[in-house]
Structure formats: structure tokens, C-alpha cells
């Protein structure tokens, strides 16, 4: 099962890497050399002067967050398929401890955010969730 997980997560990571490549596929050697020369001369690469850099940064941040959410979902899938944390850490090229800490910290960050904006006590939320859960279960039973 570890191999399957590795292939799922590695395939996903490969796709992520591919998104940053040349539109027609791989960046050519000459393109890379040109970029290196321009970078050496202090010329920005990949951002046209007239482009909306702040807008691009905002979109990039949103993309990164979406990718992070997808990665977390994939880890859940990998666990459902029987992957251990050693398998997941290996697929992500990090140690088991680091993988666990990374996702723990991401959840903790979101927990802090929900606590900061929440106006409801646990009692209120549990009361609200009771009816919703009944509906969720009724939906699941329907053919």
C-alpha cells in the first residue's frame, strides 16, 4: 500500500511541479540560459513591467492555499488507503515527524482563526449541529 500512496502523492507533486514549467512542456536549455543571464543582470524574470504584480501575488497566494488544501486532502486519502506516516513522509520527502508536525500546525492555524471569529459557545454550536447532522444522515440513507 505504501507504493500506491507514494505514486498518488508523488504524481500529485509532479503535477504541481509541471504547472511551473514552460507552457509547451519543458523549458529549453537556451531559455534557461537566457533567464540566468537576465537574472545575473538584475532583470526580473517572468513579470512584465506593465503587469499587475500585486494582483498576481494575490492570485499566487490563493493558488498556493488551494494546493495546500489539496495536499492535506490527499494525505487523508493516503491514510484511508492504509499508508503509514512513514509512507507519507517518504512520498513528501520529509521525515515522519516533520510530516506530522506540518499538518498539525496547519490545522492549529485554522483552529485559531475559527476561534477568533466565532461568536458561539460549544453549547450553541452543538444544538445547531444536532438538526443538521440528522439531515446529513437522512440524506445518506436515501437511495
Amino acid at each position, binding site marked *: 500500500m505504501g507504493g500506491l500512496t507514494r505514486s498518488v502523492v508523488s504524481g500529485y507533486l509532479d503535477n504541481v511541479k509541471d504547472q511551473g514549467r514552460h507552457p509547451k512542456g519543458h523549458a529549453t536549455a537556451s531559455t534557461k540560459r537566457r533567464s540566468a543571464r537576465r537574472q545575473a543582470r538584475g532583470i526580473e524574470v517572468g513579470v512584465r513591467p506593465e503587469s499587475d504584480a500585486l494582483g498576481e501575488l494575490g492570485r499566487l497566494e490563493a493558488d498556493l492555499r488551494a494546493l495546500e488544501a489539496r495536499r492535506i486532502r490527499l494525505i487523508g486519502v493516503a491514510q484511508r488507503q492504509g499508508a503509514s506516516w512513514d509512507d507519507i513522509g517518504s512520498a513528501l520527502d520529509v521525515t515522519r515527524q516533520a510530516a506530522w508536525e506540518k499538518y498539525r500546525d496547519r490545522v492549529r492555524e485554522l483552529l485559531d482563526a475559527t476561534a477568533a471569529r466565532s461568536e*458561539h459557545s460549544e453549547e450553541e454550536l452543538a444544538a445547531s449541529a444536532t438538526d443538521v447532522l440528522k439531515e446529513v444522515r437522512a440524506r445518506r440513507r436515501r437511495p
Partner: protein
Amino acid sequence: MPGDAARRERLILDAMVLVAGLTSRREPASYSRRLVELALDGRFELVVTATLLQETYEVLVDPKFKGRVTEPEAATLVGGLAAIASIFLRDEYAERVRLADDPDDDYLAHAAFDTGSVLVTRDEAAHFERIEGLRVARPGAALRLVGGLDDEDP
């Protein structure tokens, strides 16, 4: 990932405990939230099942739920719980002996028995306590069990 898992208590937090813990404001009586935070600290082994996470996700994003979060947030919270859970069970209880009065709760009772876990629940505690041999606790009692509640706490 914390070591000595064999010596840690195993807990299943039911969907009501999870959604309250994931979305409530932080206050002294937020026992469910504190349980979720202790799970993140590795103070006990969090046991989850696919059905439990699915139910939790669907409540979190439901427009009628007061603590509703966005779908990406719910995916991260629930996916993250799946990722940090020590044990992730598939739900294969259809052919098994009925344990709980409510068939919808049966998977939780089976999961708790199978893993030797304490089932942490709020309003359903009395209902589960009727099942012989099942370890059931309300959030406050569960917190005390894992050393997360002081005598001064409410």
C-alpha cells in the same frame, strides 16, 4: 509524531464534539475545543473513521450550521484530522451485530470496541452508556482522563 503511542489513551470524538471543537470560540468551558487541541499535541491517540469525517465535513459546510466554515477550510480541518489521526478506520459494519439504539450511531460503538477507545460524546452519552462494556465520556470527563483539565476548571 509523538512516541509511546502504546501508553496513550485512545479517544473517538463524535461528530458533535468535533464540529463544536473546530468552530467554537475559545473560553474556559470549551472542552471540545481543548480536546481537539490536545489531539494536535499528541496527548492522546485520535481515532477516526471515514463516516465520522464525512459527517463532520457535511455539518461544517451546511448553511444551517451556525459555525459554518468555507469548503476549503472544512477540507483542511477534516483532512488535517485524518492526517494526524493515529488510527483511521474504514466503516465495514453493515453485517455486524447491532449495538446502538440508533443505527446511525452503530459505527461509532463498533469503532470504539474495535480499537479499545473511549467514545467522547455530548448529548448521546446516556444512550451509549447502555451498551455494556463500552467506554463513554462527555468532553469534560474525557479532558480529565487525558490530563487536560485542572481542578479549578469549570
